[in-house]
């Protein structure tokens, strides 16, 4: 176990714990994607890992060394943790190169070139932060973190301002850097696609509680509760004999006629196919089709019974208290 | 270390004129004794001496207001000086009956008047300034000024506090403007017509009349000098002395005495009058030319210690009567 989080608790106001009791481990070299709603405490958690905030209870252990518990607090600068901040603050008095190599004194010419190339900053080395576009600033911030081979890399929405092209490129490069160097990484992102693409494990976090922590495929196929299932993709609710079942949009086929009928509400082109919102049994469903349908059209669909997803009662929503996973 | 000690004197002084330095230089030249001076406000110096107590380095205390000398004595910070050689040359009316301090120079608080608008015959005494006829014509500075406090103290001592209070009330109602500015400004105010008479210290007129600035000269020349209370059976003009005193624990007492006798010597007294517009306490020394022109005057014979004794009462009268 490389990174061990034990019963971590964190609050800003005592009566409103933000992180109730977080408990998970990450192996060396793994990339964990941390998924949670806006304001759920993701950044706060990363700050605790980086030593910018103290935890209120529990412990954080990295590489066998306690970083923070009720007795110990290792200062941030002694932790060797790379952090790409959500709002990518850069030092205003330093240009791109100096920001990236800030506090590094060893010769790193080759490496620097490499990092500059991968983040597409070669032409901007002498620019100051305020002369950069949002995405460029973000890339400097990424470059600054990965150039120093941290023990643990924390990425807080690192790609939010990058266009798909450069994002893809950087993502792939970071992936290979991380994997080659075996840097344990925690990636906070809102884009589930991204998580799927590079994460070894996904951690779903909601209401201060870890909801599920597993490999992407497992989460997608065996979500521990309805919330987790929804996070990874849209879910259509179907009530059969008073029992609730869920269906993924891609498992629904549009057929000429069937017992399942609905009314089209909106159909919009999403590239490569149309996304259709329709009303089935008073529930709003989403499905995909290669054709567009007019608003008001009737639509018949079919699906396989094995694609129906069912949750037992305590998983119909999300967990509000930490569950014992041991 | 002993030798070193005998070779210096430490002075806490409220006086800060160029002439003082000249005197000390002359003294050092004469005796080889080093003179160390700390110049500050009298009250702060008193407080400092009090706190320092027996470990105070001060040998001598010099002020420009005899009230503070009295206060120092009252606070037990001084020791008596009984040295005939010193007092011999000094006009006895300036001497401290208790021997706590020695006067160095003196000045009078006089009345000046607009030569244009005031008939000098209308002027007579300090008491007369309370007269209705000066309504909105009188100029004087604020009551926080120690010269005014000394003047009021002298009045209390001479005419009693009730009369003095009444006087103060009337003075306030006669004022041409709120008390403000310094003594020179009172003169300038007369020149510009904001008032007709003012109460000021004598040497400021000397300063004005010797000014290098033409306009100041004009202002100085526009007023006449009047010494109040000069008539027969009147007590004479109010005076205040600048004096020196020996501290209780003076570490260099002998040197200190030497300095005192030097400062009261005729040559040093001559140096004073040559450089300032004050009067010498030695009757043999004639004042500066400009000052001499105003003529001789009768001085209030009041025990100068009264200027300190009555100080507190004076202030309360100021406050009560609204003299700002």
């Amino acid at each position, binding site marked *: 176990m490389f990174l061990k989080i034990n019963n971590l608790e964190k609050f800003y106001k005592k009566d409103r714990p933000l992180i109730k009791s977080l408990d998970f481990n990450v192996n060396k070299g793994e990339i964990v994607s941390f998924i949670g709603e806006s304001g759920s405490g993701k950044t706060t958690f990363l700050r605790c890992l980086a030593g*910018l905030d103290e935890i209120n209870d529990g412990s954080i252990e990295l590489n066998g060394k306690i970083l923070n518990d009720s007795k110990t607090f290792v200062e941030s600068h002694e932790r060797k943790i790379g952090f790409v901040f959500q709002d990518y603050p850069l*030092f205003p008095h330093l240009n791109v190169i100096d920001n990236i190599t800030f506090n590094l004194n060893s010769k790193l010419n080759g490496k620097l070139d490499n990092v500059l190339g991968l983040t597409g900053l070669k032409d901007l080395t002498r620019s100051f932060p305020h002369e950069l576009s949002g995405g460029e600033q973000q890339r400097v911030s990424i470059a600054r973190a990965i150039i120093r081979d941290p023990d643990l890399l924390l990425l807080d929405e690192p790609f939010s301002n990058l266009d798909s092209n450069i994002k893809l490129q950087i993502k792939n490069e970071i992936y290979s850097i991380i994997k080659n160097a075996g840097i344990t990484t925690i990636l906070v992102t809102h884009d589930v696609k991204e998580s799927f693409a590079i994460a070894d494990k996904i951690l779903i976090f909601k209401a201060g509680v870890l909801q599920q922590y597993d490999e992407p495929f497992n989460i997608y196929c065996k979500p521990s509760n309805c919330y987790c299932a929804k996070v990874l993709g849209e879910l259509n609710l179907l009530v059969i004999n008073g029992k609730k079942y869920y269906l993924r949009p891609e498992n629904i086929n549009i057929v000429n006629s069937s017992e399942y009928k609905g009314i089209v509400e909106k159909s919009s082109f999403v590239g490569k196919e149309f996304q259709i919102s329709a009303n089935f049994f008073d529930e709003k469903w989403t499905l995909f089709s290669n054709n567009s349908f007019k608003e008001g059209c009737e639509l018949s669909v079919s699906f396989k019974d094995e694609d129906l997803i069912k949750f037992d009662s305590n998983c119909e929503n999300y967990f509000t208290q930490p569950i014992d996973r041991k | 270390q002993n030798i070193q000690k005998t070779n210096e004197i430490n002075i806490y002084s409220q006086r800060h004129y160029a002439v003082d330095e000249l005197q000390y230089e002359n003294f050092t030249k004469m005796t080889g004794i080093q003179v160390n001076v700390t110049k500050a406000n009298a009250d702060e110096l008193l407080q400092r001496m009090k706190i*320092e107590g027996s470990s105070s380095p001060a040998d001598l205390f010099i002020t420009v207001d005899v009230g503070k000398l009295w206060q120092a004595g009252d606070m037990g910070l001084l020791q008596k000086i009984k040295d005939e050689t010193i007092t011999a040359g000094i006009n006895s009316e300036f001497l401290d009956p208790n021997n706590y301090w020695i006067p160095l120079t003196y000045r009078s608080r006089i009345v000046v008047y607009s030569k244009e608008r005031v008939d000098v015959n209308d002027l007579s005494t300090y008491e007369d300034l309370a007269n209705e006829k000066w309504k909105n014509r009188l100029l004087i500075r604020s009551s926080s000024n120690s010269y005014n406090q000394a003047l009021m103290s002298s009045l209390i001592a001479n005419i009693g506090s009730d009369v003095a209070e009444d006087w103060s009330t009337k003075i306030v109602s006669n004022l041409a403007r709120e008390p403000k500015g310094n003594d020179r400004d009172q003169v300038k105010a007369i020149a510009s017509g904001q008032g007709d008479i003012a109460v000021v210290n004598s040497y400021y007129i000397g300063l004005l009349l010797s000014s290098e600035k033409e306009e100041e000269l004009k202002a100085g020349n526009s007023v006449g000098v009047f010494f109040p209370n000069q008539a027969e059976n009147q007590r004479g003009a109010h005076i205040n002395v600048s004096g020196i005193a020996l501290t209780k624990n003076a570490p260099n007492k002998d040197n200190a005495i030497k300095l005192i006798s030097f400062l009261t010597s005729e040559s040093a007294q001559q140096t004073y009058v040559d450089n300032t517009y004050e009067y010498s306490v030695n009757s043999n020394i004639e004042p500066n030319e400009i000052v001499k022109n105003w003529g001789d005057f009768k001085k209030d014979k009041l025990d100068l210690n009264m200027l300190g004794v009555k100080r507190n009462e004076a202030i309360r009268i100021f406050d009560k009567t609204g003299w700002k």
Partner: protein
Amino acid sequence: MEVKLFKIKKPNYGLLTVVFLSTLIIFPIISLIFGSIGVDISNFLYLSEYLLLDYTISTIYLLSLTLVFSFLFGVIPAWLISTSRFKGRRIYDLLLYLPLAIPTYIMAFSYGDILSFSGPFQSFVREFIPSLTKVVNQDYLQIEILAVLLSFSLYPYLYAACRISFSLIGNNYINLSKNLGLNEINTFLRVGIPLSRPAIFSSIFLISMEVLNEYGAVSYFGVNTYTSGIFRAWGSMADMDTASLLAIVLFLVVCLFFSLEKWLTSKFKYSFKSNTDLSTYYKNSNKKLIYTHISCITIILAAFIIPILYMTNNIFIDFKNIDFFDVYVLSKNTVFVSLASSILIVLVVLLIQYLKRISKSKILNFTGETISLTYALPGAVIGISLILLFSPINDYFGFLLIGSVPVLIYAYFIRYMAVGVSPIVSSFKKHPKKLDDSGKSLGLKPFQFFRKIFFPLNKNAIIIAFCICFVDIMKDLPLTLILRPFNFDTLATQTYEYAIEEMITKSSIYSITIVTFGVILLSILSVNQSKK
């Protein structure tokens, strides 16, 4: 949850240092407060009955007026110069700091003389426009004019702090405000000023304390302020205890305001947003340019050039009597003590602010603020409390601490801490905490932190703090008077001694030397600044 009794961190040297330093700074106050327990309060009651109400009213009136004028002279030019680019901007920027080098009482005496019957103004009118003689022949010693004169020499505090603060607002907020429909004036009022609240508050505090502690100019103008009460108790009634009691009451009132402000704004932040452009914001229309030039020139002329011309004229008049060797000796003394103390102050302020910034300790935060409060006490009272503090040592060891240069520097250090704090805090509060976080996560150790982030980011403010401290200490009177060694004069004491004896002419060479040092210092540093 378990109770955390022991948190094994490294011993918090930072905290210890700050507590030590601030104890050093507020010790005199504490001794003063304890000393005043159980003193005879009859004089105090007497004063409060007869005078305090009166004094308080005129204090408040004078203070409000001075603050309004200082605001006009300080904040508006600071905004214009920070947010536009035009020819002459740099020279205005330099000149606008300079009136600080003219002591308030010199400003008051000079203008008193300039405007008086025998002064150049009235003489000129009498000579050349006789018809106006009646109109200009006024009593100029009015409280309103005093307020203007005080603000002439005090507005630079506001100017300096606002200049720092305004130039660190960041394009980002300015753009936002434009986009939300605010024109420049409204942006100034609704964004510029609120975002500079710490700067404005701390300089208003400085100015208020200067006004409250001002004695020379105030009594010359016949205005009785609270301080007049203190000096009346002390000087005239020979009652030091009452004077300290009054000083303490004032101190407590100030503390109250201070805490109130801290409490009110505890949640606010004033930093710019990271990655933002900090330079140029507003275009200059011709109208605005004219206005800018007129306002800057008027202020510089009135607050600096005229008094300087007056003094220079005095010097020529009195040229043959000037003892240049004396001027040289005094300059040496003055520069030495000012330099030593202002370096000390800037270092300590930096240390405390820096530790405050990197630590989350509440105690640190608290002490960091309190050290400015010493400014609320009149210098003379601090002087006496130091004598009180050191005389036992004198007694005990048999050597003289009082009246030695180290104690004098210590006194300056205590008293002028607030002057150094103001610009540095204004600047520190402007830099986003995010930068600290980045630095920490990039592995900066505390000292490196200072060298690599705080120093470069706050360099301007540090330079300005140093200059202002230096100039202020050069002007210091009450502390120097009472605590200086034997035969030790400074330019300020000499200026004062002549001025108080109504020999303004003679004092001019000394005051102009003070100003000259101020000019030299500011010029060197501003040249240095512009290299960037």
